[in-house]
């Protein structure tokens, strides 16, 4: 059931078009992550949604309520900001209860609501603290409680975790996700950390230059990127470029190019062929190419090269392998000396060809 519907949304700053035909339908209780590089218009989309900037054309509605012409204070969408945006002259409970106070809710009821929210976000006992006395993680939880206090139709979060240090970020990430499951609010979360998006979201929208490049579940986005941009952005850090189909097929045997990978448009493509795959999908061996063991796996491509560099990642080593004019990154369990000849083996299923 669609709750929030964005149709043909266009927005610009002056003559610079920032959002170019955004269409998005969000179901009740769903959490959508907006993922994209810096400057692609994620914040702008949230601002347009909240009514902080005028839109050029298009329609935004919640249920059957059309909100795109309403002022920000009437939309019932609340935002959690990257900079927390707490009011330093108020205490924690004044901050959280402010939206209720604006709605002229009775004092006693505000107090019970605030206490309830404080326990939800694990801040019991801090209600009379000044917000300036809190840590970053605590502040962001106050901001979250404040935004949830008025039971908004949609909650939007603009990089809520990027000001927190790595460990706190992991905690708050899970807290937000658990809270969202428990309370069932509809939300949009902006991030440029792909892992965060994968962990938290029900669906991910990858944005590029003001357009939604792909919308899908985390698994779809990760395993079946529809465009080169999405593949690249979702961490397919190896890219091989071929100028023609012939040179592509020379490297990658036809049997590997299963039908699903070969789109009809491929045969008469004018742009170079790009092949993406992740370093974690690359099998690396020091055995020579014609070792019988390597031929067990049929539907895979094999590339020869020698080790250029090796970096310790903690769990494994990332090995840079020079293969002709390309450099390929591969994860490997042990360190290899520079110059070691190796064979790389990438299963066809891990290849994304555009």
């Amino acid at each position: 059931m669609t709750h929030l519907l964005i149709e043909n949304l266009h927005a610009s700053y002056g003559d610079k078009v920032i959002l170019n035909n955004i269409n998005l339908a969000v179901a009740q209780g769903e959490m959508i992550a907006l993922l994209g590089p810096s400057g692609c218009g994620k914040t702008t989309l949230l601002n347009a949604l909240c009514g902080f900037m005028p839109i050029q054309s298009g329609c935004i509605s919640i249920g059957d309520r059309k909100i795109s012409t309403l002022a920000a204070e009437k939309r019932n969408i609340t935002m959690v900001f990257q900079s927390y945006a707490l009011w330093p002259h108020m205490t924690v409970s004044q901050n959280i209860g402010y939206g209720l106070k604006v709605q002229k809710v009775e004092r006693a009821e505000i107090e019970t609501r605030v206490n309830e929210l404080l326990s939800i976000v694990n801040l019991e006992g801090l209600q009379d603290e000044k917000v300036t006395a809190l840590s970053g993680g605590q502040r962001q939880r106050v901001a979250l409680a404040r935004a949830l206090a008025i039971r908004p139709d949609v909650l939007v979060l603009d990089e809520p975790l990027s000001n927190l240090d790595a460990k706190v970020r992991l905690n708050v990430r899970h807290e937000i996700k658990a809270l969202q499951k428990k309370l069932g609010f509809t939300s949009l979360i902006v991030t440029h950390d792909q892992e965060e998006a994968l962990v938290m979201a029900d669906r991910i929208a990858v944005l590029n230059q003001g357009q939604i490049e792909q919308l899908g579940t985390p698994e779809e986005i990760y395993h079946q990127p529809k465009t080169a941009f999405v593949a690249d952005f979702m961490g397919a850090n190896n890219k091989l470029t071929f100028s023609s189909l012939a040179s592509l097929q020379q490297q990658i045997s036809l049997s590997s190019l299963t039908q699903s990978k070969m789109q009809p448009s491929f045969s008469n493509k004018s742009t170079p062929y790009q092949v993406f795959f992740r370093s974690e999908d690359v099998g690396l061996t020091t055995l020579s190419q014609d070792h019988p063991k390597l031929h067990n796996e049929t539907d895979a491509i094999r590339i020869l090269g020698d080790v250029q560099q090796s970096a310790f990642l903690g769990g494994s080593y990332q090995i840079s392998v020079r293969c002709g004019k390309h450099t390929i990154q591969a994860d490997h369990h042990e360190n290899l000396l520079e110059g070691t000849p190796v064979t790389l083996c990438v299963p066809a299923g891990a290849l994304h060809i555009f």
Partner: protein
Amino acid sequence: MRSSTSYNLWLIAPAALMVGLFFLYPLFFSLYSAITTDEGGLTLAHLEKAFELYSNDILFTIIIVLASVVLLAILSISIAALITLSPFRSIVSLLGFIYRIPLFIPFIVTAQMMRTFLAKNGLMNNAFIASGMLTPLETVSFLGWSGIIIVFVWKQLAFCTLLITGAMAALDESQIRAARNLGASRLRILFQIMLPQITPTIGVAMILSTVTIMSVLSVPLMIGTGTPTMIATDMAFRINSYGDYHVANALGLVSYLICAGLAWFYLRQSLKDKGAI
């Protein structure tokens, strides 16, 4: 280490000397002169005389200062709020441009033009008569206490608005947005989110304006109607007509105390606000 300290001392010495010579020395000398006789003995006679002769003027000055400061606060906050919060950006950008004009007009010129503008036969009344809103018999002159207040407000408004607009613009935009999407109207945001955070700046703007108002001589001379007048005029009169530096300095001490009183009130208020949270 030691040499760097003495080097630093040499570095600040000229500035310190300047401050001491041209600021502290005259200040303390005038305060000293207000409470001593020519022979150097302590006395309150000058202060007594100042109060005896000019208590009306002192009261008048206080009233003018308070009225101007209150009007200044109300007007400059409204203009600054319009500039930062109004949704009608294009008309407001015009306002943001024109309000600064008085900054570039000296007090004496302001007084001069207000004198011909506010008089019973000035341009303002002329315009009202020409537009049929008043008959020549109904016109009133604004010269006098109200004129003095008008001139001070007219001239200082730009300065106060500049400071307050700056402080409002320095607030994090997202704080205001957070309040808006919780449903707060712009008026509510002004009073509950913005003003509590910029009271220090408002206080500073008002105190600086007070000091300016107390020290301007041309306005009470040109706009005022003679008696009562402001302390600055009396000081000039004591010196120019009688060469009486003692009473002039005593009046100076009084105006200094008025400013200090306001500053104290402001400091106490801001401390109280801080303590309450």
